[in-house]
């Protein structure tokens, strides 16, 4: 590559690294608009949760389904949820197991009585409303009863009905229909109920929510807010910790990491403890509506003995997990938890670039662009020196330097924490050095100073809202969403930055209920 071409690449990368999403002129007045969103298939988690809540089954048939393709950081993005014929065949297999399970329980909760025709006819409208998440029509019931009648025998008839209900596109997809009149419009209250329940519970609406859709409560701002609060209070809202935070903060990666046990004291017990700590930490922010900026700075965490000793609190007189004060230790918030420090590290060492990239992509929504072609070939990298020294030598190339100047200093700040999060003064090759300067000019001496800078960066709050919004909508926020994202951020800030409030603000926002009819050109 010629020198000129290299410069052009470098300048292009600089521009790409400096972008700041989501800023707008607050005086601008814009009509709310909604991007088109494709009909969404239930993903694996949603399928299993839905059959659990609909049928009371303990089976998890989707556990073995092919993994849902994730996109934009989440596995519930409508466009990425493709479907090949094999998946349909697997649905058919799963339904056989589910039918056998419900049948063995005397058809509860599908039917409230023995499966004779009168009982089925009486039970179907209620069951179909729950399963298809909308009121049943006369045609729906007639079609299902025809299947019942054709079977010629009560139990076989009930089985046929249940198979058809569970293989219906109304069950497997979240279908939203457009009125002929409007292009951008508010979805129906039943459709809104599904949007809410799959956002906050990763599951179907319960009866109370369907009733609120039926009687118009959801059309009323107060009624909607009350339902959202009720849903966040429900145990099922734990799905936000598992599925939203599990993906946003990459906690799910802990399942897959491996560590060289000759270098690190790592085993299944520690893996489980790391997961639990992160789960409890996020749960406390959600349940207590804690200021989400403190997720990066809090000096209390949740730890068992194993983690406490990793954090330098040796003789912990307790069993299980307790809330632990770490203010005497060099620890603060998510980015110094053992779990996060481990999940951002390869098996044998730390990766400052990986940690820096996580912070930029997941916490600030400023993902660095892909490395230029050939950038991973590091023929001339020195083989000696600390991880930091070697990385600094490697990115001296101006092609790499532009972006690494924003990625690496963040990662270097955490060099005191090894690949399982334990404190160290030296890495394998020398004394670690944690000071650095961000592209903005802000300087820090170590991780504890850096996390304060990050927590104060308005990009952290707006990025968190953007991540919640992406998960809630199952699509990328488009230019149409800039206004509403700004408004939600303002609302969250005015309310004291509570994490639970952020979910409430998204769920009750006007935009959350909007839909645009796709006009075929």
């Amino acid at each position, binding site marked *: 590559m010629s020198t000129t071409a290299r410069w052009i690449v470098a300048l292009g990368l600089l521009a790409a690294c400096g972008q700041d999403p989501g800023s707008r002129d607050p005086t601008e007045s814009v009509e709310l608009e909604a991007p088109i969103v*494709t*009909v969404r298939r239930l993903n694996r988690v949603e399928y299993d949760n839905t059959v659990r809540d609909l049928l009371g089954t303990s089976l998890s048939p989707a556990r*073995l389904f*092919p*993994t849902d*393709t*994730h*996109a934009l*950081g989440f596995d519930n*993005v409508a*466009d*990425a949820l*493709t*479907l*090949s*014929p*094999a998946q*349909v*065949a*697997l649905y*058919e297999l799963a339904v056989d*197991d589910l039918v*056998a399970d419900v049948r063995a329980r005397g058809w509860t909760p599908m039917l409230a009585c023995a499966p004779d025709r009168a009982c089925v006819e009486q039970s179907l409208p209620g069951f179909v409303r729950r399963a298809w998440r909308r009121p049943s029509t006369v045609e729906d019931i007639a*079609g299902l009863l025809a*299947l019942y009648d*054709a079977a010629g025998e009560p139990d*076989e008839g009930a*089985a*046929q009905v249940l*198979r*058809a209900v569970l*293989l219906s*596109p*109304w069950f497997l*997809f979240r*279908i939203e*229909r*457009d009125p002929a009149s409007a292009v951008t419009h508010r979805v129906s209250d039943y459709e809104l109920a599904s949007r809410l329940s799959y956002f906050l519970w990763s599951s179907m609406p319960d009866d109370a929510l369907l009733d609120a859709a039926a009687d118009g409560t959801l059309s009323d701002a107060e009624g909607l807010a009350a339902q959202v609060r009720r849903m966040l209070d429900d145990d099922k809202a734990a799905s936000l910790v598992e599925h939203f935070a599990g*993906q946003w903060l*990459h906690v*799910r990666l802990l*399942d897959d990491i*491996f560590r060289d046990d000759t270098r690190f004291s790592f085993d299944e017990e520690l893996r489980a403890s790391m997961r639990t700590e992160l789960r409890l930490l996020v749960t406390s922010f959600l349940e207590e509506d804690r200021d989400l900026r403190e997720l990066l700075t809090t000096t209390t965490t949740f730890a068992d003995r194993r983690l406490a000793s990793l954090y330098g609190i040796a003789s912990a007189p307790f069993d299980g997990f307790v809330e632990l004060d770490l203010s005497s230790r060099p620890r603060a918030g998510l980015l110094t938890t053992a779990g996060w420090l481990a999940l951002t590290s*390869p*098996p*044998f060492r730390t990766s400052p670039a990986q940690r820096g990239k996580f912070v930029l992509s997941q916490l600030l929504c400023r993902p660095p662009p*892909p490395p230029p*072609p*050939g*950038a991973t*070939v*590091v*023929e001339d*990298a020195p083989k000696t020196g600390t991880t930091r020294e070697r990385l600094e030598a490697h990115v001296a190339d101006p092609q790499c330097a532009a972006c690494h100047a924003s990625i690496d200093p963040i990662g270097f700040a955490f060099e005191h924490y090894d690949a399982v999060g334990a404190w160290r003064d030296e890495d394998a090759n020398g004394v670690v050095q944690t000071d650095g300067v961000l592209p903005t000019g802000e300087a820090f001496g170590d991780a504890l100073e850096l996390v304060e800078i990050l927590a104060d960066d308005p990009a952290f709050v707006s990025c968190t809202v953007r991540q919640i919004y992406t998960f809630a909508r199952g*699509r*990328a926020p488009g230019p149409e969403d800039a206004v509403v994202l700004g408004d939600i951020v303002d609302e969250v800030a005015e309310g004291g930055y509570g994490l639970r409030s952020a979910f409430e603000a998204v769920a009750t926002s006007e935009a959350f209920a909007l839909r645009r*009819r*796709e*006009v*075929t050109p």
Partner: protein
Amino acid sequence: MTRASRRRFLGGAAAMIGLPWLEALCPEATAADARASRLLCWYVPNGMPMEAWHDEGVLAPLAERRDDVLVVRGLVNAPAELPTAGQHAAGTAGMLTAATPVRSETHPSLGKSIDTLFAEVHGRHTPLPALALGTQDGDAVGNCDNGFSCAYSRHISWVSPTTPRDKITSPRLAFELLFAGYDPTASVTALERRRSERTSVLDYVGEQTAALRGELGASDRVKLGEYLEGVREVERRVQTIPTCDADAPPEPDASDLPTRIEQMIDVMVLALRCDATRAITFMLGNSASNRSFDFLGVPYGHHDLSHHQGDPEQIAGLEVIGRWEVEMFARLLARLDATDDGDGTLLDHTLALFSSELSDGNAHAHDDLPALLAGRAGIAGGTLQTDGARWGALLMGILHALDVPVARVGDADVPLAGLSSR
């Protein structure tokens, strides 16, 4: 029928010994199509240590079978060569398409893979047109490869240019999928009744889906169209339940990789033997897999290792992994050759392709790709040296050898000559 009864029918004893569950199966291959050709594509991640590939060091496990194997050298998959990052995704997506993937996280678009093109001709009368198998579901979070859809990294088989074929990673589930509706203990009347029940439900669902589609916008119609197509395919399958005797594989699925692969090989042989499908793709790992091969004494992430930077120790590790991957493939070939199929063995009627998304993983190179063809359907063993021939031409040559006379695959419109004789 219930699948539970079929499991009971099998019994735990056969399961414990491992292979014998297969032996009772398919006593008579189905007569009419017994000699039909089969296509099998076997993918391994992260390229190959190319020096040991060329001197055939990593091919040692195939030494005794060298006559059944054609090594093709010097092929270039130019469409997979990207001007940006994403080389693993592009190479994986391009292995059976020779097409360039569109860079999008949410809207992958590529081309049909050769197993799909093959199945459009030879898969119409089998219960499954094609089957995609693997050993890894996929990373739990994050971006797969620099803005390229994760679908590119997890699939080599594409049903349509925008839809990957769902890949099954559980041997048991693969079995269930192949033999759904099959029950050796059921009476003819019971089977007929079950068939009719399934058909009525699928008819109901199909009609409902078709009607609903009419009310929706264009993108939604596409999604429900995929569903409808799947429903129609299952309806066809209900009419063509495999007729050979089959018992379920041991459960639970093995958790260690070598045993898991053995189980998948069992499923492949069973599927081909029973003519449940004629096209199988298998991914030994996902694109850029960072799996550790500690059971081979190579306890490093495979992808990390593939960026060897010329380090002899890392290259030695890659050679151990490469030889083991070839050994697994050799076991499949041995099993195929030990299985009767009409006038010969399954291997006589199979064309198998072994390759990776890259040649040298360190350089992310798409030229001089590692390629093995094996079996006795349409090819002759030996070595075919090409001088930068197109990867698409190889794919096209494979299809032509299997009587699928397509006019183009990816960037190629002339099939590679010399596969069957030189």
